[in-house]
C-alpha cells in the first residue's frame, strides 16, 4: 500500500513576543489556527482532527491544556491528540498529524504547537530538583554548554564561530515579521561583547523566551488541488530517540540525529544533502549548535561544520542558507519552536517566506531536537509532489 501524499496548504503564526498579556492561552492558539485556516482557504468545519503539541505543562501551569483548548480550536466532536516529546515536540506533532493524512485516517488535519512562557519561568521550570537524578543545572544552557565546549575541543573551531551564527540569525530575523527579536542595531561587536552566561555561550548567542503559536493545515492530494495557494509536499519525515545518558553517548553528534536524517533522506531520495537541499531550518537554541548540526545532519564532514559557518555558506545569500527566519535564536516559544522550523521550511518551498525567502527554494529541511539532545524530529518538504 502506498501512503497518501501529504501537503501543507496553510500556515499561521502569531507575532512572537516576550509576553502576550493581551490574550489568554486559548486566544493565542486560536490566532495562529485562524491564520493557518485563512491561508488554506478553509474554515473550522473543514478540519477532521486536531493534533496539538507543547513542551512541559509546568510552563503555563496547566495540566494537559488541550482539554481546555478543545473549544478554542474547534475540536469539539472531533479527535484531538496531544503530543509531548520535549523540545522536539513541535516537529513530532506535525509528523503525527502528517501520519493521519498519510494513513488515510483523515483528509484534513489542523496541527498546532504553542508555548506561553510568560506564564512562568522556563529555566527554573526545567530545573526542578528530582531526588536521585542528575540536576539540569540552571536550565538548558547549563546542560548544553559543556557539549559545545566538547565540540570546540574536538574540532579546533575558533571561539569566534558562535557569535557569527548569532549575528546572522538576528539579522535574518529583521526580515521576518513574526520573529520575536528585532535587534535593529545589531553588530558583530555587540554580540561579542554581550555577557557570558554559560561559558562559552554568551547572552546574544542564546534563544529568547517567547510567547507564541504556530499552526499548519495538512491535507491529501484532493485537498491540495482545492487549495488557493501552492502547497509544500512532504517528501520524508522521521523521529528518533535515544536515552539521556549512557556510556558511549556522543553529545556532540548524537546517533539518533544521524539516524533520523538518514531516514528522511532515504525517503526523499536525497543522496547529497549539501547540494540537493536549498534551505534548512534547524533547531539552534544556542549559536554553536549550527555547526554541530551541520555535521550531524550530513551537510558537512565531521569537524568541518564550523568552516561552512565561517565562510558564510549558511548566510541568507550563501549556498546553504540556515535559519533564514532567524531561527530559535530569535524566537523561542519552546513547544512551538520545532513546528516553526517545519513551517518555515514549508514557507520556503511554497515561495511564501517574504523578505527572508531563499530564491527558488525547491527542497527544504525542518529539524527539531529536544531532551538531552536525544529526541529528533525532521521533515523534508518540496515544491513538487513526491513521486510515488
Amino acid at each position, binding site marked *: *500500500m*502506498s*501512503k497518501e501524499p501529504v501537503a501543507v496548504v496553510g500556515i499561521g503564526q502569531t507575532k512572537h513576543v516576550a509576553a502576550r498579556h493581551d490574550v*489568554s492561552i486559548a486566544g493565542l492558539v486560536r490566532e495562529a489556527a485562524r491564520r493557518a485556516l485563512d491561508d488554506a482557504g478553509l474554515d473550522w468545519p473543514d478540519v477532521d482532527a486536531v493534533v496539538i503539541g507543547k*513542551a*512541559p*505543562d*509546568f510552563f503555563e*501551569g*496547566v*495540566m*494537559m*491544556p488541550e*482539554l*481546555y*483548548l*478543545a*473549544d478554542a480550536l474547534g*475540536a*469539539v*466532536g*472531533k*479527535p*484531538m*491528540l*496531544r*503530543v*509531548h*516529546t*520535549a523540545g522536539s515536540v513541535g516537529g*513530532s506533532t506535525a509528523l*503525527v498529524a502528517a*501520519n*493521519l493524512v*498519510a*494513513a*488515510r*485516517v483523515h483528509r484534513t488535519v489542523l496541527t498546532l504547537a504553542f508555548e506561553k512562557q510568560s506564564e512562568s519561568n522556563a529555566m527554573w*521550570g*526545567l530545573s*526542578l530538583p*528530582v531526588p*536521585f*537524578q542528575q540536576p539540569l543545572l540552571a536550565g538548558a544552557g547549563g546542560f548544553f554548554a559543556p557539549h559545545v565546549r566538547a565540540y570546540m575541543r574536538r574540532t579546533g573551531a575558533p571561539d569566534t564561530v558562535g557569535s557569527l551564527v548569532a549575528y546572522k540569525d538576528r539579522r535574518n530575523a529583521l526580515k521576518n515579521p513574526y520573529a520575536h527579536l528585532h535587534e535593529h542595531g545589531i553588530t558583530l561587536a555587540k554580540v561579542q561583547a554581550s555577557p557570558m552566561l554559560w561559558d562559552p555561550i554568551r547572552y546574544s548567542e542564546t534563544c529568547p523566551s517567547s510567547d507564541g503559536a504556530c499552526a499548519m493545515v495538512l491535507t491529501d492530494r484532493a485537498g491540495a488541488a482545492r487549495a488557493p495557494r501552492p502547497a509544500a509536499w512532504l517528501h520524508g519525515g*522521521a*523521529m*528518533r*530517540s*535515544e*536515552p*539521556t545518558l549512557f556510556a558511549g553517548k556522543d553529545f556532540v553528534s*548524537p*546517533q*539518533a540525529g544521524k*539516524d*533520523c536524517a538518514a531516514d528522511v533522506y532515504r525517503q526523499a531520495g536525497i543522496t547529497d544533502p549539501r547540494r540537493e537541499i536549498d534551505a534548512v531550518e534547524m533547531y539552534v537554541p544556542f549559536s554553536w549548535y549550527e555547526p554541530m548540526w551541520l555535521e550531524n545532519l550530513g551537510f558537512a564532514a565531521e569537524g568541518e561544520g564550523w568552516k561552512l559557518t565561517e565562510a558564510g555558506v549558511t548566510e541568507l545569500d550563501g549556498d546553504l542558507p540556515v535559519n533564514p527566519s532567524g531561527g530559535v535564536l530569535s524566537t523561542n516559544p519552546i513547544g512551538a519552536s520545532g513546528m516553526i522550523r517545519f513551517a518555515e521550511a514549508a514557507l520556503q518551498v511554497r515561495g511564501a517566506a517574504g523578505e527572508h525567502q531563499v530564491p527558488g527554494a525547491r527542497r527544504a529541511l525542518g529539524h527539531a531536537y*529536544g*531532551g538531552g539532545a*536525544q*529526541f529528533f524530529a525532521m521533515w523534508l518538504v518540496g515544491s513538487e509532489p513526491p513521486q510515488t
Partner: protein
Amino acid sequence: MPNHAREVAVVAFAQSDHRRHTDDLSEVEMVMPVLHEVLDRTGLTTGEIGFTCSGSSDYLAGRAFSFTMTLDGVGAWPPISESHVEMDGAWALYEAWVKIQTGEADTALVYAYGKSSPGSVRDVLTRQLDPYYLAPLWPDAVALAALQAQALIDAGDTDEAALAAIAARSRTDAAANPHAQLRGPVPQGGHEVAPLRTGDCPPIGDGAAAVILAAGDTARRLCDRPAWITGIDHRIEAHGLGLRDLTDAPSARLAAEHAGAFEAPVDTAELHAPFTSQEVVLRKALRLDGTVRINPSGGPLAANPMMAAGLIRIGEAAARIHRGESRRALAHATSGPCLQQNLVAVLEGDKA
C-alpha cells in the same frame, strides 16, 4: 466504518500490580517489568520493534520531561523510532496504530504509567481545568463527578442503590484479577461528595501497563489468538461543564460509531469509568445492554493508575480475546473532567 488498509492486533499485554504506594520504586523500575513481560511474551527485542509510543503526565511525576527517564527502561539504543503523548496510554496506542497504518512499522510497543501516590491526585487534577474560570475555584475530580452523578439521579437514570451495585460487582470481579488494587467487596462508606460514596470512587494508586501491536501475518506469528483492532476512534467534547449534558457522552457515542462498534453486538466491554455513575453514562451512550459483560477485570473501580487505566482497558479486552473468552469486545478510555474526551476500540478474535 472506514476500511483501514492494514489489519492490526494487540498481541501481548502486561500490567503491574497496582498499589496505593510504590515509594520503593522509581517510574523506570515500575515500567521495566511490564515492558520485559510483553517483549518476552512475543519473543521480540527492543531493536525489532518498529515504533514505540508512551503516555504519561509530567504533572503526576512532578518534573518536566519525566518520560525521558522511563525511556531508559525501553533501552533505546541503538536509537529507536519513538513518540510520546501527554495523555492516557490508550491514545499512545492510537498513535501507534496510525503509524502501522502508514506502512512505516509492522510492530509497535505502547506503554503508560502513572504514580499518583506522591501527591494529592484530587488536587492535582484541578490543574487540568480552564485556568481562568474554573481552576481558580479548585473543584476536584470527585466533586465534578458528583455533579455528574447528581444530574443522573435527577434525570431518573440511576440511584444510589444502583451505583452501589456497580461498585460491588466491580470489586467482586476484581477478586479474580491478581493485578487489581481492590480485590473483593469494600464498604460503600459515607459520602465523599454527595451523592458519591467512598465505594463509588476509584482507588488511588500507582501502576503501569504495556501492549504490543502487530500487523497482519506478523500478528498471527506472534500470537495464537490475536485481538484484531477492527475499529478505533476518539472524540472530545467542550471543556465547559455548563456547555454539556453531563448525563450523556456524545463524544463516546461518536467514537463508537466511527470505530464500528454498533455494526455488530459485543460480548464484553471494558469501560474506563472511574466513578460508578460514569458507567451509567457510558452504558447508555455506548448502547450496552444487560447481555454485555462489563468490566470483568474489575475495571477502574478496582485499579485506576492515572495515564495507564485507559490502556489497561484495551489490554484487558484483548487479553480476554487471547484467552478465548470473548469474540468481540469494546474497550473504552477517557480523559478530562466528567468524561470530556473518549476513545473507543473494537477488538475481535478470528472467526473460529
